[in-house]
């Protein structure tokens, strides 16, 4: 029995064999293992439903027989019939409900698994694996698997049962004729197998095209303002149409295969009908087979063909689900960046970088960086665009890790701190604004350990009090990234408040003041001194004036530390620094 073999193979393989090379082949059947009980119950229900369905003609037949024999009792027939009908009603309804629950639960659990996995991954992983693809994984891919559980699986299993049963019956009636008929099963099986293999590839490609569709849509929405300023809606539509065309062509390719598969299965099944007619007819004519057996054979054949056709129709769903499940397990089986840190001592704020280098796509971003910062001091990093300043801050936040060298806080490599402790002591204000679509309170008290008191202090320090007071819903106002309600400077100050709300020991500012006006900026710096006196401050900035009195200034150019010292020292010792300083001097008068 081909399908039974495929099935058992499939189950077998899932238990034992991790395939030799390449990425592990994921098996969509394996995924059902934890739901064994539910699945078994479903199959039993399906078979029971089908079985009772067969009873109805029997009851009618018996009633007619009884009637013609003259001992027909209406009441009994009515009762039997009624019981059967109600039983079918209840069984099918329950089967459907359980099927719904099973498939939705599979989907929900898979989503949880994938999201939990993603949440444990590193920032680099998210960037590399492309958020658009992860979105498809969590939505369309899981939907395909859900569809498999909801529709295909039970039909597949019960079809296999029916095929097996019918084959046995056929063999019992006339084994020679049965063999001739059953020979269609391997023919159909191998056609199915061949086409299925191709289908799987196409479905996988289809999913990848959906990824790119997502990307185009995503970018066209994120960049909607730019597109409208440049009036480039037309090229955007072209870009979308191009990807959409690929999607359609792939869909048509799948269709071509499918439109070949189904007619072949139907035709081969019909061949069996002809075979029975010709060969069985021969047996009957020759007298080796009774007419009754012949008739029975014919009707059983119909019972055999229907489930084969069903499997054919389900192949679409199965191929799609197995392609999708492969993609999902790729995510689930990706190596994790495991939490290695164990140290939970509080950080004082001494920072030491020793020979830190960072590569990005094999090109050096940071080269052999070394410097130290004393706890409680203020340090500024200045340097031209693309000098590697932001990446340096990313390193200090454990968002990325260096290719070589070590970063130590209080003499301990930062990798050795637990993430929880580490991140609760480092406040990072990103260069670009990241605002979540939720209330201002939730945006600022983003870490849930933030107390009301530290929230208030952070808001006051970031000079947001007046702004928040002016809002109708105050802190409970819902804000959003692309919302029009916030100006660039307001967003940046919300980011600052978010970093301060955790009461950090170390505060990293990435070009924080770029969108905040002078007056507010000096107020904020003053507030910082007053409200967070022990803070170790590391600020990436363009402007020298506000940082002139900082204890240390580091000049970073093309990934290298060019000079380190105080403003006074650098002005004398570093020509590059002096040049930058002079470029800002003309406006010095207005800087306060």
């Amino acid at each position, binding site marked *: 029995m081909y399908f039974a073999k495929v099935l058992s193979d499939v189950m077998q393989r899932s238990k034992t064999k991790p395939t030799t090379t390449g990425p592990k082949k994921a098996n969509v059947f394996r995924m059902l293992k934890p739901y064994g009980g539910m699945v078994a119950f479903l199959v039993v229900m399906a078979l029971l439903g089908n079985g009772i369905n067969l009873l109805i003609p029997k009851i009618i037949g018996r009633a007619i027989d009884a009637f013609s024999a003259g001992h027909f009792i209406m009441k009994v027939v009515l009762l039997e019939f009624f019981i059967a009908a109600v039983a079918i009603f209840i069984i099918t309804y329950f089967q459907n409900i359980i099927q719904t629950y099973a498939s939705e639960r599979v989907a929900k659990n898979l989503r949880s698994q994938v999201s939990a996995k993603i949440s444990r991954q590193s920032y680099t992983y998210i960037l590399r694996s492309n958020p658009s693809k992860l979105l498809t994984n969590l939505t369309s891919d899981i939907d395909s698997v859900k569809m498999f559980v909801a529709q295909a699986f039970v039909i597949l299993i019960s079809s296999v049962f029916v095929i097996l049963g019918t084959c046995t019956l056929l063999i019992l009636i006339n084994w020679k004729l049965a063999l001739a008929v059953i020979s269609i099963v391997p023919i159909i099986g191998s056609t199915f197998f061949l086409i299925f293999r191709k289908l799987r590839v196409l479905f996988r490609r289809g999913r990848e095209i959906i990824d790119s569709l997502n990307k185009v849509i995503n970018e066209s929405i994120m960049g909607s303002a730019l597109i409208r300023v440049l009036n480039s809606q037309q090229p955007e539509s072209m870009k979308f149409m191009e990807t959409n065309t690929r999607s359609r062509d792939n869909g048509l390719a799948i269709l071509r295969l499918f439109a070949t598969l189904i007619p072949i299965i139907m035709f081969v099944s019909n061949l069996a009908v002809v075979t029975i007619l010709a060969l069985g007819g021969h047996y009957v004519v020759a007298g080796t087979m009774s007419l009754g057996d012949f008739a029975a054979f014919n009707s059983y054949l119909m019972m055999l063909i229907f489930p084969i056709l069903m499997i054919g129709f389900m192949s679409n769903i199965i191929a799609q689900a197995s392609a999708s499940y492969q993609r999902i397990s790729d995510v689930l089986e990706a190596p994790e960046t495991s939490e290695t840190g164990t140290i939970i001592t509080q950080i004082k704020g001494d920072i030491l970088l020793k020979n830190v280098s960072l590569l990005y796509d094999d090109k050096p971003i940071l080269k052999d960086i070394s410097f130290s910062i004393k706890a409680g001091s203020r340090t500024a990093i200045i340097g031209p665009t693309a000098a590697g300043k932001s990446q340096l801050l990313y390193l200090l936040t454990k968002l990325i890790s260096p290719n070589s060298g070590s970063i130590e806080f209080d003499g301990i490599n930062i990798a050795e701190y637990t993430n929880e402790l580490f991140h609760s002591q480092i406040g990072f204000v990103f260069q670009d604004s990241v605002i979540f679509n939720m209330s201002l309170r939730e945006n600022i008290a983003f870490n849930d350990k933030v107390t009301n008191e530290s929230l208030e202090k952070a808001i006051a320090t970031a000079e947001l009090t007046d702004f928040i007071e002016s809002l109708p819903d105050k802190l409970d106002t819902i804000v959003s990234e692309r919302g029009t309600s916030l100006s660039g400077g307001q967003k940046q100050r919300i980011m600052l408040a978010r970093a301060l709300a955790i009461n950090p020991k170390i505060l990293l500012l990435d070009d924080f003041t*770029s969108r905040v006006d002078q007056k507010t900026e000096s107020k904020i710096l003053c507030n910082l001194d007053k409200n967070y006196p022990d803070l170790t401050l590391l600020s990436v900035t*363009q402007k020298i004036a506000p940082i002139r009195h900082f204890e240390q200034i580091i000049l970073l150019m093309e990934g290298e530390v060019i000079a380190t010292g105080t403003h006074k020292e650098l002005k004398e010792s570093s020509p590059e620094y002096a040049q930058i300083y002079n470029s800002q001097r003309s406006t010095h008068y207005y800087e306060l």
Partner: protein
Amino acid sequence: MNYNLNKPSDKQEQKVSTFALMRKLLGLIGEERRNLILALGAILVNATLSLLGTYLVGHTIDTYIQTKQYHGVLVFAGILLTLYIVAFFVNFIQMRLMGGVGQRMLFSLRNALFNKLQELPVDFFNQNKVGDLISRINNDTDKVNQFFSQSLMQFLGSIFTMLGAGIFLLSINFQLGLAALSPALIVYVFTKIVSPWVKHRNAASLKSTGYLSAEIQESLANFKVIIAFDRRDYFRKRFEAANKQNYTKSVQAGIANNIFMPVYTLAANIGQLIVLSLGIYLILQGNFTLGLLISFIAYVSNFYNPLRQLAALWANFQVAMAGWDRISQILSLETNLHVVESTKTITSTSFLSFQNVTFKYPNGKEVLHKVSFDLERGKTYAFVGPTGGGKTTTASLIARLYDTTKGTILIDGNDIRSYTPEERSRIIGFILQEPFLFSGTVRENILYGNPEYYKLNNEQLTEEIKNAGLESLLEHFAQGLDTKIQTTGDGISLGQKQLIAFMRAVLRKPELLILDEATANIDTMTEQLLDEILKKLPESTTLVIIAHRLNTIENADDIFFVNTGKVIHAGSLSDAVNMLLHEKNES
């Protein structure tokens, strides 16, 4: 116009009949009508062939096998074989045609949706979440497609078979036929009553899918903050909540969808029961024969089997309609930025003129109040003021990302609304505060929206860049023009993004160039370079510079101070500085 798809106004929520929805949908696939008709023809041929096959088998058994004429058996086996070969091809054609219609419909539906998105103003995107829109374009269209490519033909086929069987039943014995069909009436009423509820549940399920998608999209896009603030649990929690809601709604929809099948099956069985008991009664009355009853019962199943099939299809149909509702919600939106006839009621000699402009964002407070100012050709203007004062809003109005609430904006004395988007974007260049890059290369991003240069090769383009004095800016990119840009520009710094945005805008040679904090994250040395480049722009180019850094505005011909809904002309740089220092911060 209200652009929030998840909070539709009452007017937009008005009920549209299923029929009207269907008609609108069919309008989208107008050119497929021929294919649909052909496919329908193929289905009819197919059904006939299959019935004929069954009949031929019966005939052969009756006339040849029973009478043991093997020759006749072989002849009819041959005929049957030919018939099945024909069926094979018809089958193939039918599937190809119908599937093709489905795929092409999905294609046009997605295109129509995406093009509609392109027509809509920025306002729309401010009010809707990316993930939800993606879900509508990908998921909901797919639901519609699933019905069309997989179920529609079966649907029609079932209805045909049912109609045929029904007429047949009535013609054999009208009384018995009527009785046999009576449960179908109950099914009809049941379907009529239950369908809106089923559709409603499916709509809720699709909505929660959109919500889930939005949640995922937002979290993934902001992942660095989630890591830096050690809120990996935040992602999980938010996601779990959405996931759980999605689960509940999907189960509810699934249960609703599954209500048809058991009821339809019950109706089919009751139909048979009625025929059996009434048939026996009629026989006892002497009006019917046992043989006729037996065949009548067989025909009854011909009527009720397709009805059961319809049960499954009808649920699919409800899902598709719910999806189509969500799609047509977008398709029915219109842009609120129409091009109007130029009405020369107000004359203005200046290049750009704001006349009593008042502006408020939807559901927001007033940002500009009766603002008037004029800009002349070839001059450089600086707009300064505290954060949240209205500078970006003013710039957005110049680029017509929004229309004014009251008052007019004139370009060369003509209402800004009378310019076509092509004309407007040629005149006005706007470097946005938040630079946006498309994934691809630096080259593609610099040339974005500048088709004139598309055909240039890298050398020719470099030449153009040199002419514009931009070549030194390329040095900030490791592989120059071919430097790769990842999705949404992650991996390159904000300063670099601003450089690309700057080059993109300058190469387009606009008549009016707005720089909205366009160089805020660029170091002062490079910034001086940018100043030089701006100075080299043609004499007639008007510059509007929005900045905090005073050095970027000290060369301005005129300075405007923007705050608390007002745009005030500052006499001199020191005036502006005074205002900056002493005006109360509104925000």
